[in-house]
């Protein structure tokens, strides 16, 4: 399950374990050696994880064992109750929606759900929503507005599903509508990119007042693989494309695409899901608390300004 660049770390960990076992077995004192190795392990982890290449971060963002939307929902939220269906086309399991408590506050929560194992992944369509998923999200936006409930969205998708039925049912139309509908929410909305923020399929539920991203999550207009296939006719150039696309949390903060980065434990969220989720929960409560002081008009204006000002321009001389 380890990612390629995690191997030296895992190897060193194994060696420490071996040494401990040996010391215990032989009843000799190797504590000094072990302590030295542990120090080295810590430095190694920091070295590796503070200097991850963009492509390595893409791999962390997609790592098995990384907490999924439902993990957050079950861990960070209380008394979650799932609401199904879009009243139109179906019930998309790649988009989980419902009501929950967060820090004592009722919220509408919308999560893009990948599977936690292969079977669930197939059932969840790898987190790629159909139009039905976006329609369900819009139904939740309506409910949030009607009852004055803040909205939390958890973004984790390779993108909206590219399939025949999805296109026939107006995938583009429904993403545009969802962007529009979310931008018009009269309630506070916070989005967190917890893993992969894949293109329009992610943005459709990302038009929030505050957009946060986990340290090793990514948010991109196109996957590195597809980008490489277009630019160099070679999907294996994905690492190069990942560099070029500037899709990491730090990049996005600099570009103004996200408002904040949530630190992950050393080694990435998949190495300590519980700690990661606690951080996200605390941050969500904080952000919702701050937004709760804004009026409807302020929320709308703030969201409008946030997205209206996206982009980099120069004057024609």
């Amino acid at each position, binding site marked *: 399950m380890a990612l390629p660049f995690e191997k030296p770390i895992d190897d060193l960990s194994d060696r420490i374990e071996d040494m401990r076992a040996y010391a215990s077995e032989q009843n000799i004192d190797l504590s000094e050696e072990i302590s030295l190795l542990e120090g080295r392990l810590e430095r190694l982890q920091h070295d590796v994880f503070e200097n991850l290449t963009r492509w390595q971060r893409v791999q962390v963002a997609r790592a098995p064992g990384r907490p999924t939307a439902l993990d957050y929902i079950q861990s960070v939220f*209380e008394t979650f*109750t799932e*609401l199904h*269906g879009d*009243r139109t086309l179906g019930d998309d399991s790649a988009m989980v929606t419902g009501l929950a408590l967060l*820090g004592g506050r009722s919220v509408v929560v919308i999560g893009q759900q990948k599977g936690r194992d292969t079977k669930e992944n197939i059932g969840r369509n790898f987190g790629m929503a159909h139009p039905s998923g976006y329609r369900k999200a819009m139904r939740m936006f309506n*409910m949030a507005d*009607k009852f004055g409930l803040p909205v939390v969205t958890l973004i984790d998708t390779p993108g909206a599903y590219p399939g025949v039925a999805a296109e026939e049912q107006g995938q583009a139309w429904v993403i545009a509508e969802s962007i529009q509908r979310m931008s018009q929410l009269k309630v506070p909305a916070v989005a967190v990119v917890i893993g992969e923020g894949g293109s329009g399929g992610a943005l459709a539920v990302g038009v929030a007042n505050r957009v946060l991203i986990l340290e090793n999550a990514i948010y991109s207009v196109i996957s590195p693989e597809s980008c490489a296939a277009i630019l160099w006719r070679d999907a294996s150039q994905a690492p190069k494309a990942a560099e070029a696309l500037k899709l990491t949390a730090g990049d996005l903060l600099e570009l103004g695409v996200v408002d904040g980065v949530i630190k992950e434990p050393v080694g990435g969220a998949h190495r300590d899901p*519980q700690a990661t989720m606690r951080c996200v*929960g605390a941050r969500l409560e904080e952000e919702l608390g701050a937004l709760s002081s804004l009026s409807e008009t302020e929320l709308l204006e703030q969201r409008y300004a946030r997205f209206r000002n996206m982009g980099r321009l120069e004057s024609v001389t």
Partner: protein
Amino acid sequence: MALERWFRRKRPTRSDDNSPAGLWLKCDECNAQIYRKDLEKNLYLCTECGHHYKMPADARVAMLADAGSFERWSGTIKGADPLAFEDTEPYVKRLERAAERQKRPDAILTGAASLQGEPVALAVMDFFFAGGSMGSVVGEEIARAAERAAREGRSLVTVAASGGARMQEGALSLMQMAKTTVALEALSRAKLPFISVLTDPTTGGVTASFATLGDIIVSEPQALICFAGPRVIQQTIKQDLPEGFQRAEFLLQKGMLDDVVTRPNLKARLALYLSLLRGTLTPTATAAVGGEPGGAAV
């Protein structure tokens, strides 16, 4: 369709009566012999397989309302006979007989209650009265319940069970679809939740009006829920219908329901919805969120 049976039946005998009667019952689902008293004590669920039988309106209210909290609203109006309708028997006669047997003037029981402490208006349809068909009285009681709930700051919970429109009231019964629908507007404006519970069967004009306009819509397992009945559709397409067609679980997949909830879980679920929508839920352990992740139920 149950509505059909109601019309064809001149004078119901004990055996073809829809309402639970007789000492023993053979389960439709698992063929077990069930003692009827046990069924009644078991929320009208088969004691062997859990099959959901139709539940009388009073039992439904008793199940949902907190003990002693129900205050009846309905019952002061009864049906007129605007069309002087007569088939094998005058409509007024049918109404009288049903009223006598069901101890209420029409196919609806409404009132105020608390539901795990949440103030609600309950509107429960009585399928054993004219197949739960919706005429002027049913429409009016639902409309009044919605409006009064809005005035009193109560959420609305309806429990549908209906063969469709009451055809003996002609176009006036059709108009009840619009009447019940417009009355919901008052609740919406007051931002009060409306939760619709669909039970077996919910069909025709009731499905195509208030019952599917809930902010949240849940159904009991296996309930038949449709606009046109399966027989009508079979006549139209002259083919077998898909497996599970028009049943609750099928409609959940089709995106039409928020959930399918078993009867023993219904009250708690409704309470959860209401408290989350109204923001009245007290967190069981507020501190848990910032500290150790709590054991949230999913």
